[in-house]
């Protein structure tokens, strides 16, 4: 086997970016989606037949969709496994600033959880500040003024111009 081809590209950290061979991501995403599609197919199978004898019922179309998607997913995983065994992957998935991206995801989930409890204005302001921080903004004036203007304008447009009641 060509040793140059079997290097582990995920070990490289180029300018703060983490890289991963694409086939690994394809296998992980493919298997995760296969589980979801499996559950979908199980539930589609359990759907009752239609009372109308000439109707194919509520489950036929989802079954066709689910089976076709599962086949496509299996083919993608098989293709990725072939590349893995051949050790000739040159396509990479690049992840920049992964810690900040994960923090950003956590922040997005948090803002959804607390939105109704805390209210629109503090959540809008707080999440705008934190997203800017996570994005690398460090200038204090920008960190305060941009979210302030943003919160005021978005809140005013939706509440007063569009008449939408925000918490």
């Amino acid at each position, binding site marked *: 086997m060509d040793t140059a081809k079997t290097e582990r590209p995920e070990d490289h950290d180029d300018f703060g970016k983490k890289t991963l061979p694409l086939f690994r991501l394809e296998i992980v995403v493919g298997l995760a989606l296969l589980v979801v599609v499996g559950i979908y197919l199980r539930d589609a199978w359990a759907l009752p037949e239609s009372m109308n004898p000439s109707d194919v019922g509520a489950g036929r179309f989802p079954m066709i969709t689910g089976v076709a998607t599962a086949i496509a997913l299996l083919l993608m995983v098989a293709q990725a496994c072939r590349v893995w065994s051949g050790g000739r992957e040159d396509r990479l998935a690049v992840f920049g600033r992964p810690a900040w991206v994960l923090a950003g*995801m956590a922040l997005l989930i948090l803002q959804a959880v607390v939105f109704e409890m805390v209210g629109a204005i503090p959540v809008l302001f707080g999440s705008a500040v934190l997203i800017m921080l996570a994005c690398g903004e460090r200038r204090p004036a920008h960190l305060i003024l941009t979210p302030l203007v943003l919160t005021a304008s978005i809140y005013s447009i939706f509440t007063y111009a569009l008449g939408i009641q925000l918490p």
Partner: protein
Amino acid sequence: MFENLALGFAAFGDPYVWLGLLVGALAGYLIGAIPGLGPSLGVALLIPFTYGMDPVVAIVMLVALYAAAEYGGAITAVLINTPGTAAAVATAWDGYPLTRQGKAGIALNLSIIGSGIGILVSSMLLVVTAIPLSELALNFGPGEYFALAVVGLSLVSGLSEGSVLKGAIAMGLGLALATVGLDTQTGIPRFAYNPEFFEGFPLVPVLLGLYALSEVLFMLEDGPTQKIKSQPITGILAVPFSVYWKLRGHLVRSSLLGYVIGVIPGAGASIASFMSYIIAKKTSKEPEKFGKGSYEGLVASETANNAAVSGAMAPLLALGIPGSATTAVLIGALMIQGIQPGPLLFTRNPEIPYSIFASLFIGVPVMIVIGLAGARLWAQVANIPRPAIAAIVATICLIGAYASSNSIFPVFIMTAFGIIGYVLRKAKIPLAPIILALVLGDMMETNFRRAMVISRGSYDIFYTHPLTLVLLVVAVLAFVVPLVNDLRARRRA
């Protein structure tokens, strides 16, 4: 037809329609000029602002944004070699060399006026072709409609970026999402693990999550960007008519080509601009100038990518089949307004398609003036700090999702799809087929089941009707041909 067209133009008697056009055009230029934010994200972000608006005002605003984003994408491509949209990549090949030669003003003039001509010519073609197409579609039965939806999805999945297999996976996921909720024919809840899902996946939060929120995560990846040094713009109004007269062949051909490619589902503005550029180079008397600041190359790319905007409207309005990610988002916006695109749209809600036609015509001088007058400003837009854009997009997503049904449920849906969209994009699974399938899924299943009822449960209805058979063969070929090409390329590699 002329009566209805007059009805469309009459809608502009309402100042709010003008306001919608202007807001959409300004927002479109802004979105188009910011690298990374495309027209689909722009339309998705603007949808929450259209809740409660008059449908004509809302749709004119969204269409104006779509068209202006394509104009705006060229400005940063020309001035700083950073295409604002994917369709403006070929524009940068000749636009930026012109800027470096001190001809930034001329390059901007050519790209903006060329875009205007592209929209104008293609809008005429749209008026001429969309109505007969919708009349033809009125004769379609459920089998033909089902096959038509399959063709649209197959073309979009087959032509989408990445492998065909991944396009198929995305299409399958979108169709699966479309089946969630109460079955429209039997009333049985399907895959609805929570009563909130009885009405299916809400479209706006899914759109905002997949297109906008996932982009925020990509902005977090990039971190703060460096300030871009822009070039001086001189002579923007000093392009003589003779220059355009010399380019007339390219302007007309690129408009026609852009329109035709725009009509084909999945092809879109990027392919139109690349193909037009290649053809212009092949037919040019000075092909050696291409890539070094050719007026012909610049005009060919820019005219075609804007003409594709009107082209993409034809299947959307006439057949109810969106052919691109942006038109899929637009169809969502129409549905939110209670309007179902398709052949009946021209008889049930003629004010909608004809207002769109009128807005495309009236929009041309508006976009040209905004583009030429504000060129310096649009060039500065690319310098808006990335963290501020991320905060703006995330905030609009949050409020837009909440406002879609005044509850927190869509916010969770939007957040989940934001994260899912990020992961799928990392795995190079395209998002456009998901949205298209989600939008078309219900129509596809309803017609599939109707066809099966007509044929008493037999599948022969799909191959005994000639039009259905032809459409299904096209759908299969749309998958098989790129798949075979893909496999051949892999073997060669």
